[in-house]
């Protein structure tokens, strides 16, 4: 992949996180819905073992807003990209 392709693909991912994710369906996903229906959702609430400033895909400064989700999603996408790159480099060097 050349530089232009990497930027294009990455941009597509960032756009997805920044523009589409704030408008994602607010309904619970398959497992969460069934957990609620079958009455075991509360068992997932064990209290926080770790705390992160970007918990629940929100940025505290813009708490619970679409913009907060957008910022958190963009940050996450870039973090995953960098980590993915580094891990791939680490793994491929060994083989």
């Amino acid at each position, binding site marked *: *992949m050349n530089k232009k392709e990497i930027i294009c693909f990455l941009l597509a991912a960032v756009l997805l*996180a920044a523009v589409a994710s704030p408008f994602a369906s607010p309904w*619970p996903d*398959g497992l969460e819905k069934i957990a609620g229906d079958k009455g075991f959702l509360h068992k997932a609430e064990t209290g*926080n073992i770790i705390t*992160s400033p970007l*918990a629940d895909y929100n940025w505290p400064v813009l708490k619970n807003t679409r913009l907060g989700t957008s910022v958190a999603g963009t940050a*996450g*996408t870039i973090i995953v990209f960098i980590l*993915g790159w580094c891990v791939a480099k680490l793994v491929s060097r060994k083989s």
Partner: protein
Amino acid sequence: MIPLMGVLSAFIFAAQMVNFPVISGTSGHLMGGVLAAVLVGPWAGAIVITLVLAVQCFIFQDGGLTTLGANIFNMSFAGCAAGFFVYNLLRRLIGKKIGIAIGTGIAAWMSVVLAAALCSVELALSGIASLTGTMIAMVGTHSLIGICEAVISCLVVNFVMAVRPDLIYTNPVANR
């Protein structure tokens, strides 16, 4: 392959944020296991999925630390191992680009249903839910979510085939 793993991880992470409604009151989102395996192979694909799940867990507190292992197992086993097996079988049987597309679609659907079934078994083994009831509900709902997984995976793979067909994983020694 290194840049592809980076952008693929980023894309799957972003796509997993976009929940779409499946039936009233329930949504679904991309899993990406088969998509990753088709593009970078099953082993690297499992690393991509693990990375996405780890970031969701540690940075966004989504998925849960105590269930991270089960999540990684379900999605990389169902998506990257079993999913890639089904995909590769169909790709070889049918051949050509259409084989890649059909293989991706069927494997993607199957991977989501299998991951849901594995999750039901784990919940039952943990004594959290009854096996039969949870299994029926999980497999039923995820048969629908799986259709979306198949459509999205197919669209992305077809797009990659159109612009950079060499990026589709073919054999372990392919140097990309």
